[in-house]
């Protein structure tokens, strides 16, 4: 089996890192694209922290000096020919996405807060059942999460090209967003996140990265 890490414009040699199971990396190249791969003996991929970081390390090594299109964890192919076939078949899509990602990194922006405490002992309206009270609280949490995201985005939008976001992934995580940020803006961007964190009273705002652009690999994502 062939394990795939990332795609890029043609590479002359593979990074010196080792693959997820210790095998050396190889490069498979077609006319316009390269895939960074390693040989993989097992037929399944076990999701362990070390394996995840192993995948990530390889992609980060490639992105130090060129645009990179990261593969989803666990992407495998039966042989080299299947990889080359895939590169040829989807070349236009991959090349267009690589161009769009040139000079960009992904930065994760999130917020953590203390969920609203239960109001079971003080009904919002007389006669309201527990189910309705729950739904009301939940929609209240969504409103608060949405408004938190809007406040953060007012500051960060001008420093980034686009974003994807998710509200209330869990009761304590109101905002989980990913921003596509030009290299030159990264320092300012993280400074702004620190300022937002200092200003916002009811949540901790943090950022992670710079990541390879995992959240922006779809051709249509704009």
């Amino acid at each position, binding site marked *: 089996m062939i394990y*795939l890490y990332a*795609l890029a414009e043609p590479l002359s040699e593979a990074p010196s890192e080792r693959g997820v199971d210790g095998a050396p990396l190889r490069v498979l190249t077609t006319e316009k694209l390269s895939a960074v791969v390693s040989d993989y003996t097992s*037929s*399944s*991929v*076990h*999701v*362990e*922290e070390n394996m*995840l*970081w192993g*995948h*990530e*390390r390889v992609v*980060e090594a490639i992105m130090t000096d060129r645009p990179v299109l*990261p*593969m*989803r*964890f*666990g*992407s*495998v*192919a*039966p042989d080299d020919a*299947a990889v080359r076939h*895939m590169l040829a*078949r989807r070349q236009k899509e*991959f090349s267009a996405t690589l161009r769009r990602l040139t000079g960009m990194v*992904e930065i*994760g922006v*999130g917020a*953590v807060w*203390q*969920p609203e405490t239960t109001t079971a002992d003080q009904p919002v309206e007389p006669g309201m059942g527990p189910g309705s009270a729950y739904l009301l609280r939940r929609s209240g949490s969504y409103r608060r999460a949405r408004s938190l995201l809007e406040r953060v985005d007012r500051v960060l939008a001008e420093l980034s090209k686009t974003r994807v976001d998710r509200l209330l*992934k*869990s*009761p*304590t*995580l109101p905002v*989980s967003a*990913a921003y596509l940020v030009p290299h030159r803006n*990264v320092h300012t961007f*993280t400074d702004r996140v*620190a300022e937002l*964190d*200092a200003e*916002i*009273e*009811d949540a*901790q*705002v*943090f*950022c*992670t*990265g*710079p*990541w390879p652009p*995992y*959240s922006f*690999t779809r051709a249509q994502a704009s």
Partner: protein
Amino acid sequence: MSERAVLTGTTPAAMPRTGPERDITLLELVDRLLEGGVSIHGDMTLAVADIDLLRIGLRVVVASVDSLSDRAEDVSIVGGTKP
């Protein structure tokens, strides 16, 4: 709020693997690697095993992220870990 976690400064794979910052970064890593990236369904096999074990592990991670907000509630809703 104070005692925040602003994590940028080095790339994620080079970050120290300790403390709440490590938990948040791991959560972000899992989201990205299992939900993001180029998907090759259709022409190739995705053979990711142990997703359920990962979910259990993530619940531990999320619980420790929760403690960041001073509330150690057991959270079982972890989006985005489906295979």
